[in-house]
């Protein structure tokens, strides 16, 4: 314990050094900014700033880059709530209820609760890294292909819960998402599928293009269709801060979201998006009145926002303690460390304690800065809604296009986003929600990859999914969940049939 305190003391002495504080601020400020701008994600930003870090000492450089990442997951919820546009891939879920809150004039409380939830999650994440970083990271080694497959299966079943409308439509959207996820090079055989010889499609369809098209563009087209009659949600901007009831209702979701996010962040290859989706599903299952979800339930903002920020924090654990990056941003951090002459691996903690503990302390400092930075900004963001829509939407489209282009420096992503915009518009018309589609799109390829890898390793023996305890446990939960979803529906049908025949 004394060791922990001396480590934290070292960490804070590094993090509170004036230069490091400044770079931390630059990082979280830039992060918030790019989080707010739709489509421009931390990957593109960190990539652009990498050359600058060439000439910086390692600690401030990494503190700044880390700040961009978790800052972006803070800022991403802003446009999701205000204009139904996920600023960051992880805020897709926030669109569902956050935007509805905004339409009811409750954008202020939605923004505030997402900042508070994120801060709480960030604090817990930081404490966890400090206390249990190394043993937690070892968890990743317990997860093989079979476990990942079962986890994804569980996620997919729970995706059905996401829908607040028709169950059939939700299942259809998941299937369309799965099919879209198949596009691209098959990991196992190396064959290109549904790429039609277009090399831009050989790596699959980008998440940003789909999310931006389905949510952002689709929404804009639908709004423009309504012409002048389009509701102006600013006319009824209520209180900026959440009420006491709001806070009480959000407490549980923030706690559970933080716990879920913490676990998902640790696992290589999983996504902050999955963490947010799971939290949403869980909250919807736990609440007394699920019908409020999708219509502006504050739990649907508090939970997922806490989950994605917790995941953003804990995803640093495998990188810092083991040298294993869990996603695209962490892979960039590996590059940044390499440029600085630090080989990411188990030795970083012992050989560079000032860097390791300094980064951890700076994350907490950064989270504090973010909440201080973001709470007063809420008033300004809400004012933003007063801009007439005819002036607002071209700007949104412009930033979306820049964002889509910046993913791979390729115009193909912009065309794709435009195509998904029309698709999003029509699915909106048909009452099909984009949420389940996106989850299918994210989980599908991961699920297939791990299913086939598990089967390759087991030489075609499908029992591996049940002989490995973690995998079996998750599959049992998935089957159980499926039963609670399906049985009431079947029973209802049967009662209807019985009623009709008796009639």
């Amino acid at each position, binding site marked *: 314990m004394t060791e922990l305190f001396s480590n934290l003391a070292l960490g804070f002495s590094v993090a509170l050094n004036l230069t490091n504080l400044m770079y931390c601020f630059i990082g979280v400020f830039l992060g918030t900014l790019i989080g707010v701008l739709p489509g421009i994600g931390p990957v593109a930003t960190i990539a652009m700033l990498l*050359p600058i870090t060439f000439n910086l000492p390692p600690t401030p450089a990494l503190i700044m880059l880390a700040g961009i990442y978790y800052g972006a997951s803070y800022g991403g919820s802003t446009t999701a709530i205000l204009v139904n546009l996920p600023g960051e891939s992880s805020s897709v879920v926030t669109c569902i209820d956050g935007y509805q809150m905004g339409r009811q004039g409750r954008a202020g409380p939605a923004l505030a609760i997402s900042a508070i939830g994120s801060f709480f999650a960030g604090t817990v994440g930081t404490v966890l890294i400090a206390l249990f970083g190394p043993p937690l990271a070892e968890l990743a080694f317990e997860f093989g292909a079979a476990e990942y497959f079962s986890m994804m299966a569980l996620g997919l079943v729970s995706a059905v819960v996401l829908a607040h409308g028709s169950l059939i439509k939700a299942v259809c959207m998941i299937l369309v998402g799965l099919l879209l996820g198949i596009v691209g090079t098959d990991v196992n055989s190396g064959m290109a599928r549904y790429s039609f010889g277009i090399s831009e499609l050989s790596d699959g369809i980008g998440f940003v293009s789909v999310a931006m098209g389905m949510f952002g563009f689709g929404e804009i087209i639908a709004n423009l269709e309504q012409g002048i009659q389009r509701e102006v949600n600013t006319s009824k901007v209520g209180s900026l801060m959440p009420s006491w009831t709001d806070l009480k209702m959000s407490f549980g979701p923030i706690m559970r979201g933080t716990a879920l996010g913490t676990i998902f962040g640790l696992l290589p290859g999983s996504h902050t998006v999955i963490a947010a989706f799971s939290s949403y599903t869980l909250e919807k299952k736990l609440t007394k009145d699920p019908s409020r979800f999708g219509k502006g339930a504050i739990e649907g903002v508090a939970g997922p926002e806490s989950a994605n920020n917790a995941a953003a924090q804990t995803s640093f654990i495998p990188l810092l303690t083991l040298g294993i990056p869990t996603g695209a941003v962490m892979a960039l951090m590996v590059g940044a460390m*390499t440029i600085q002459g630090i080989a990411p691996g188990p030795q970083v903690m012992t050989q560079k304690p000032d860097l390791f503990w300094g980064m951890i302390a700076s994350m907490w400092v950064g989270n504090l800065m973010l909440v201080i930075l973001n709470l007063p900004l809420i008033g300004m963001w809400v004012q933003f809604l007063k801009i007439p829509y005819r002036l607002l939407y071209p700007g949104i489209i412009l930033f979306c296009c820049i964002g889509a282009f910046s993913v791979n420096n390729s115009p193909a992503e912009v065309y794709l986003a435009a195509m998904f915009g029309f698709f999003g518009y029509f699915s909106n018309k048909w009452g099909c929600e984009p949420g389940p589609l996106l989850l299918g799109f994210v989980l599908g390829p991961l699920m297939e990859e791990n299913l086939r890898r598990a089967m390759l390793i087991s030489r075609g023996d499908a029992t591996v999914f049940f002989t490995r305890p973690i995998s079996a446990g998750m599959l049992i939960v998935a089957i159980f969940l499926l039963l609670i979803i399906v049985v009431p529906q079947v029973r209802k049908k049967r009662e209807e049939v019985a009623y009709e025949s008796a009639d």
Partner: protein
Amino acid sequence: MLIRSAAVLSFSLLVSNAPVLAQTANYPAKPIRIVVAYTPAGTTDILARTIGQKLTEAWGQSVIIDNRPGANGNIGTEYAAKATADGYTLLMVTAGTHGINPGLYRKLGFDAVKDFAPVSLVAMVPNIFVVNNAVPAKDLKEFIAYAKNNQGKLNYGSPGNGSTAHLSMELFKTMTGLQMLHIPYKGSAGVLADLIGGQIVLTMDNMPPYVPQVKAGKIRALAVSTTRRSPAVPEVPTVAEAGVAGYDSGAWFGLVAPANTPKDIVNKLSRETARILKLPDVSARLADLGAEPVGGTPEQFSAHMKAEIAKWAKVIKDASVELQ
């Protein structure tokens, strides 16, 4: 008539040559762009940025790194092949785009030899042969014996179909007569995690992410794939030394320009690259990547590239690996 057309011809030649000559004399007169067909912060990207930074310092022109990732490097490579051949667009190529891919893909949007003017080989990065700690073998000879007793049962990982890790192991398999199953991943991070976790038994992947794990005792290194030992792990023998005579593979990186780039510009770039690669801070940065600086003339690089394409085409054919 004949004389006149000859005169016109020579005149037009003179005219078309004039700006080229002027270009060459004051090259570079504007910013240079280096296309990188991979994502930022990867080895290819860091090498390009390192060279770019030194070119800027020497010539006072900024060097822009243009990342065009996708399709195993083919998108960016095709893009650079079609760029104007004026010396202001260069491309950082790899053992993938200019060694393996020509033999791997039936249809490519570029010709690795005809569409490019080689400038200089930049660096070589050995692959490292690492095994999970549960493997009883202490060296490569023992491993080969162990694998012979477990024919077809061992799984090896690679960061993807057609990667140097995949084909290096296929080459190893053909040379030793071993049978091991290929488990492809998306990138080295997955391979590393599953290797430590014991989901797979071995890999022969690009060195950098594995060295810290070897030093921490999480996995064991049995060999390096190149013909010379690597300064990053001097105690680890080469595959050839450890019993598979003649074995040689590994990743390499080089600088090319689009074909028809003026010869003088290519030579100037080549000489400058060779000078940069000798700088001590550059070698230090390359050492962090597990890379050894090479340098050399365009002719040497051209010969190297052709030899690599032929070598990998044979490995791909022998192991019947084919994509698309």
